[in-house]
């Protein structure tokens, strides 16, 4: 059940009406929990037991941690809950990957396959709700959150349907307190939620879904393609993944807002970042902050000298890559990001500036006109950063090694071959993709300048706002792709 389907609209309307009619807060939580489970079961009913099991494990562990007087028992319960949840994640998501890699290694050594591959279906959203579950007992262990007495509240925290499948990853400290209040459907929340939903829908339907065919076409068989097409595909995928994922997040936040819940932002104009460090403060914020708080800092963060800091960065980013998928290209992508962050730390050490920021500063200094120089410097830093980010997306997107190497070579060493006809891209509507890219740039810059389109919509007066509604809905109806498209991050 995707957000942009009639089935979801029906579920949402039913939930809203049910919540509106019920007085008691507990009953409302039950309705929301049932809706969340129903939503999850629409993908695969059998995996509902996994969520319930994960919920029970962290609920019991959190209570036990709080009640244990001695530290070693608190540590025991924490480790137990982490082990249980990571084992579930590890088995469903990584078992075949590791066994396959191990078998390949043994085959090379002449020992042949040693472990059998299993037919495992990956439960949708498992990476998201497992991380959400994992964070809660840690918060209780650290004493930043009291253990929740209500199992219903913990269950809804783990399975809250708007962000169950693709985040943002919620923090117990932010979400659980919101469940103490009775859910009220306030007009301002409903309208604001609708605006967020609409913006997300525009990103997904009018941009991401029009860029998907061209990037799929180019990267399904990239060998032989000239640099210009590899660049085109890379740009298309970079914008697609952002609009797809941030569009989903906007819709998730919108749905939650309509029901009166605040869900944190996940993206803050990442393609405006002028360093990789800044990029990670703006991209998938709920994951990067989760990894910072629950992995990087516990590993020692930047407290143990340079070498340990670099090690911690590499481990964190390597696991960040592995979190995205059971494939070597994701791990490589994670390490690539780690290396870039380490390089930025090294190069930025002298003046506490990142490499990209130094470039900006150097360019600024070289210009006599300070205003224009600053702008050029910032632009150079932005282009350089995004060049590296987009290169990273190539690693992220292409699974086959030889294709990946070919694409990276064509991306880095431009071949100036502009004969792009007859590569069979016609069916992927390349010119519509170009329109979608231009639309993205305008949409993004406009949104950046006005502080978010949804915010601006909140401020519009009645006639203008309704004109925008009619025009947007008309554009969505007219340009809605005929096939059903899913979200990229559902696979993670």
């Amino acid at each position: 059940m995707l957000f942009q389907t009639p089935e979801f609209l029906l579920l949402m309307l039913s939930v809203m009406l049910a919540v509106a009619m019920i007085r008691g807060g507990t009953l409302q939580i039950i309705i929301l929990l049932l809706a969340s489970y129903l939503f999850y079961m629409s993908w695969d009913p059998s995996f509902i037991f996994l969520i319930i099991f994960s919920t029970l494990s962290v609920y019991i562990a959190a209570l036990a941690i709080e009640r244990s007087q001695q530290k070693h028992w608190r540590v025991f319960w924490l480790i137990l809950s982490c082990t249980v949840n990571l084992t579930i994640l590890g088995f469903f998501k990584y078992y075949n990957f590791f066994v396959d890699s191990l078998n390949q290694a043994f085959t090379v050594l002449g020992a042949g396959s040693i472990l059998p591959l299993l037919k495992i279906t990956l439960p949708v959203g498992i990476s998201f709700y497992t991380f959400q579950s994992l964070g809660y007992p840690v918060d209780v262990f650290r004493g930043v959150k009291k253990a929740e007495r209500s199992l219903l509240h913990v269950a809804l925290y783990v399975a809250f349907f708007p962000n169950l499948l693709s985040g943002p990853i919620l923090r117990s400290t932010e979400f659980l307190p919101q469940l103490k209040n009775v859910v009220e459907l306030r007009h301002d929340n409903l309208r604001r939620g609708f605006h967020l939903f609409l913006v997300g829908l525009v990103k997904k339907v009018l941009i991401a879904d029009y860029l998907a065919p061209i990037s799929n076409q180019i990267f399904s068989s990239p060998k032989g393609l000239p640099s210009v097409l590899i660049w085109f595909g890379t740009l298309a995928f970079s914008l697609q993944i952002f609009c797809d994922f941030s569009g989903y997040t906007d819709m998730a936040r919108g749905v939650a807002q309509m029901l009166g819940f605040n869900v944190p932002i996940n993206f803050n104009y990442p393609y405006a970042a002028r360093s990789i460090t800044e990029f990670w403060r703006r991209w998938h914020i709920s994951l990067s902050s989760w990894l910072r708080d629950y992995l990087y800092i516990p590993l020692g963060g930047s407290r143990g000298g340079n070498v340990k800091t670099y090690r911690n960065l590499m481990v964190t980013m390597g696991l960040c890559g592995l979190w995205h998928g059971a494939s070597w290209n994701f791990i490589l992508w994670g390490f690539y990001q780690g290396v870039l962050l380490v390089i930025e730390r090294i190069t930025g050490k002298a003046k506490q500036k990142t490499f990209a920021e130094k470039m900006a500063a150097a360019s600024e200094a070289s210009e006599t006109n300070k205003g224009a120089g600053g702008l050029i410097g910032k632009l150079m830093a932005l282009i350089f950063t995004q060049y590296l980010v987009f290169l990273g997306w190539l690693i992220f997107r292409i699974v086959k090694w030889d294709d990946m190497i070919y694409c990276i070579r064509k991306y880095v060493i431009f071949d100036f071959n502009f004969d792009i006809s007859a590569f069979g891209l016609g069916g992927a509507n390349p010119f519509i993709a170009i329109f979608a890219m231009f639309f993205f740039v305008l949409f993004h810059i406009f949104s950046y300048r006005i502080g978010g389109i949804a915010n601006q919509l909140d401020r519009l007066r009645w006639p203008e706002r309704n004109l925008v509604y009619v025009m947007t809905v008309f554009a969505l109806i007219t340009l809605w792709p005929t096939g059903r498209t899913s979200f990229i991050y559902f696979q993670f």
Partner: protein
Amino acid sequence: MRIRDNFKSILLLYDIIAAIAVALLLYYIAYYVVIDKFQIMPVSWGRIVEIKKFLDSKISSESHKNIFIFGSSTTIEGLDCNRLDEFLPENFASYNLAWTGGSPHQLLLILPAVNAAKPYMAVLCVDYWSLFEDSRIPSELLNIVGWWQFIPQSELEYFSSNFNKEEFDELKESRFLHLWQMRSFLPETLEAYVREFSRPDLRYDGYRTNFKAPWVRTKVVSPTAMEKDIEKFRRLATSLKTDDMQRGIDALGSIVSYVSQNGIKVTIVLSPFNPKAAESIDKNTMNCAIEAVSELAKKHSAIFINQFALLSPDQFADGAHAFEPGRIIWTEALGQAISKECKTQE
């Protein structure tokens, strides 16, 4: 009190519902005008609508001298009917009524119009891979067929066995839904027009309504693109299995049976295939396919012409479509073959 406030908040969103209703109304009005009245749609779809109109216009007494040639883009680009007419007796005329993707399966959709036009002969140019086709007919085409009612309600059941349930359900949908599902036409039209203006050999100058020699490429694609395209067809050729042939052969059988019952002569042509791509075809599979088509032709007293290996690699503009010298050779070979039939009728 709180419950009343909740409902009041929901009801205050009435303007959103109204905006959606207005947008929907605008969509239907706009699309009715754009699609039905002005027929603004991607040229490849527009060509099919024009073919239907052309067939309807041929319901006349002299139409029995017509030869209608059907097929896919390989036929559109591979046969020049002006040249082909030179081989035919004086009162015969041939028309290239092929369209992009025009497999036997798709051709079923236009058969009632073919029958009504009652040509002297229907030539079915079949690409080798289309005999194994099990892909779904594009939604756009089914919606065009539904909206312009290519198949009368009374005849729908006849074709039911040739379509899968999804296709058949889509064909039977109301016109209201057909118009709703044609919403991809506007962006795709924009795409098609921009793309055509960006190419050196403009394709669509009269392409929709040109039923004699719709288009031929003016240059061969670059060697890299050629290699990539050939590789694509090699992969396709390798994937073809005898077990997947049934649907294509059944569709072909239905076509031959349907039109020959109406006294229309049928010629089945196995279209030329780029020999470089053909290298990876399994010989047994190929023999099986040729035998099946040949038997089918025999059963319905149709003519079968195998022109699979007619052209050499340098006569193709890409992996599948004939280039000018190839087009002349194919046209002449087909002209000579069908002229014999026409002369016997004379």
